[in-house]
């Protein structure tokens, strides 16, 4: 497997505050990789290091096989970037900005540009100062996706878009990945990440606290089980890996560690089970779990 992005042990300090604290990130070629984390976790700092805007204090980083700091210009020909907070020149029109970014990157596909302008319903003749936040974001998205590049780096690209445009965005991401492009997507929208991303990294306080496919991540956490039986359910409280048990003789609801799931199911099979539902944790629950705890506790509770 080749990697479009591989970073290990990245650290970066701004004065006395430490933005990255030994962060690891690997993005395989061709995948859509979600980057999740609370505000201030270091997502944008990571992306700026990957773009060569910032130089990491320590750690190894490779983007498309090159050093993003040293080979910035050569690499930037092969990638497109959409910032979370799109700033444009107030007196240029949106169309001019799209052409400019495309050209500075090494050219864009005019047919694709036209198609995307229609899809995102962007009026390119307006001055950038008159655009709303969502429309500025559309300018950056059209400029990025009109380029034939190998890697798209998207930093919360849809934070100002309406649900229709969100759908247009997801369609566009699927189109570029179908052609083999890699996408790094930093986002706060769980449904978007669940819909698009094959792998996810959750970062917090400058370190990667979790990374893997969605099912791998789910495997690391608890599943919620609701069970109803024709006879009293006993012995559940004593089983290892069972938490937050609420039981009234024949009915029970509890969380179980994924590792303990086989043993718990074997125990349940000894009863006359009438109904059983299991809910895997949503990405949001996964995220909240990491949100509320210190990174050290997460390590210990695994």
């Amino acid at each position: 497997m080749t990697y479009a992005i591989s970073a290990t042990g990245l650290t970066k300090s701004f004065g006395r505050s430490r933005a990255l604290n030994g962060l690891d990130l690997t993005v395989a070629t061709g995948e859509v990789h979600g980057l999740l984390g609370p505000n201030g976790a270091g997502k944008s700092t990571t992306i700026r290091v990957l773009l060569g805007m910032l130089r990491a204090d320590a750690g190894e980083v490779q983007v498309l096989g090159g050093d993003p700091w040293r080979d910035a210009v050569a690499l930037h020909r092969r990638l497109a970037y959409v910032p979370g907070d799109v700033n444009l020149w107030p007196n240029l029109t949106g169309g001019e900005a799209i052409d400019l970014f495309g050209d500075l990157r090494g050219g864009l596909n005019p047919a694709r540009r036209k198609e995307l302008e229609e899809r995102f319903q962007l009026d390119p003749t307006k001055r950038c100062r008159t655009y709303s936040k969502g429309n500025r974001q559309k300018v950056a998205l059209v400029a990025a996706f009109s380029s034939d590049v190998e890697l798209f780096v998207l930093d919360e690209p849809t934070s100002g878009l309406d649900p229709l445009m969100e759908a247009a965005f997801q369609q566009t991401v699927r189109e570029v990945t179908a052609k083999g492009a890699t996408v790094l997507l930093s986002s706060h929208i769980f449904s978007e990440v669940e819909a698009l991303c094959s792998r996810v990294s959750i970062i917090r306080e400058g370190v990667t606290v979790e990374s893997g496919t969605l099912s791998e991540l789910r495997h690391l956490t608890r599943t919620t089980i609701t069970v109803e039986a024709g006879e009293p359910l006993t012995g559940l409280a004593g089983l290892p890996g069972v938490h937050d048990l609420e039981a009234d003789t024949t009915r029970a609801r509890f969380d179980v560690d994924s590792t303990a799931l086989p043993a718990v199911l074997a125990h349940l099979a000894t009863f006359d089970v009438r109904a059983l539902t299991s809910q895997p944790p949503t990405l949001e629950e996964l995220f909240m779990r990491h949100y509320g705890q210190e990174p050290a506790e997460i390590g210990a509770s695994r």
Partner: protein
Amino acid sequence: MSAYAGTGRLVRLAARRDRIQLPIWILASAAMMSAGTSAVADEFPTEASRITALQGAGSSPAVLVMRGVPVGSDLGALVNFRNLASILVVVALMSTFAVVRHTRQNEETGRAELIGAGAVGRHAPLTAALVLVFAANVLFGAAMTGTILASGLPAEGALAFGAACAVTGLAFAGIAGVAAQLFQGARAANGFAASAVGVFYLVRGIGDALGERSADGLTVTPSWLSWLSPLGWGGLVRPYGQERWWVLALPLVLFAVCVAAAFALVDRRDLGAGLIPDRPGPAHASRGLLSPLGLAWRLNRGSTIGWVIGGAVFGLGIGSLGKTVQDALGTNAGVVEMMEGLAGSGGPDLVAIFFAAMMNTYGALAAGFVIQALLRLRSEEVGGTAEAVLATAVGRVRWVGSHVACAVAGAAVMLVLAGAFTGLADAASGGDVGVLTLAGAGLAQLPAALVVAGVVVLAFGGLPRLAVGLAWGMLVLSIACGLFGDLFGLPQVVRDLSPFTHVPAIPAVDPSATPLLALTAVAVALTAAGMALFRRRDLAT
């Protein structure tokens, strides 16, 4: 009066936002006025010297365009003639920008929406802006009156001078209030109102130049054209020349009419909308824009053209003074000494020394332009657009280089044209220094401006967060040490630190290439060092 609810709070908010800016406008103008008043007293201590100067100046239409009309030969009248026209421009611009800042700019940035969602009336933002600007103009006028009184001149003229400033500022506050309703963008509104200042200055200038000279040559009566310009009314009040107090009512009437119109417009439009919408622009970029250099030029185009035109107009004004200098100041040893100090060289030809001294001020102007153009590097970095450009296949050196190229080319054109127009005006008023000589003398200032550019790039590369202060501070020091070093009596070692000290005083002395090449080499080294530092640092917002 619910339409005015919240006005008091908004006035305090506006005053809080402007607590540095407006005092600077007022205090800097007062300092300018103070220097101007004492300069007149020093240069023309006797009635005879003033009469000679006025008779020379009044015969030159270019001087009348620049300065307005002379109203008499006593000291106060000369203070009016030397200062009033330019001070009126300052107060007009101060009022214009302040009104737009607290009205349309708030709407454009969305702040007005947050404010309007509170218990704030529809008329409150405009009223608050006008109240603040009214107060600022009263203070401005009082500062002018006080400054003149402090120099011991009679009170009546000082009062007329200050009042003329205050009411002129109010007239332009009214014009800006209307512009802020008409245009959707703050830049467009500022542009319209600032153009109004420029156009009215020109109308006033032409009206004054067409005026009728009195038999003794000491006063000029402006033609009817000057009555059409709000910038002309201040001069028509005639401070220190049989004051015409009723003229003060004209700008006040204009202010009242404009304010009524602006409030009528407020009632007829939506928040954020203008009556003159932004026109749609091109859907595709032209070839010319599609490079870092094209982008840098596009971003600097407006201000570059403005500076170049300003330099040319300044050159015209200076050039037209050459003959006057020869005629009027030839006998004044003090002024000759001052000019020699400014030029950094002495000699028998007073006109050549005068032009050499003025070339140094062109150099300082060009340096100011270069600083303003290159600090765009920093504002693009802070604003996030630098990141967007550098995330494409544009290297950092190429990006900085394209902005440097625009700044250098703009400064070169500005200096050549300022010099050439000096020569043209000089020739038109009977001088013989030569257009090519003066164009070359202007261009000879470029290496000094390049050194300034180099320092800006170095500061941007090495200490980005301090770059703005370092750049302007360095210009002030360079001017103090280089241009005024001799007048201040600074030792040669200190004066040598300024790039302007090393420019040969053309046309007073023969040009020599060595110092210019040395300055250029220093500039290249500084720029290269700045670029190298920028390549090694993080982008910093």
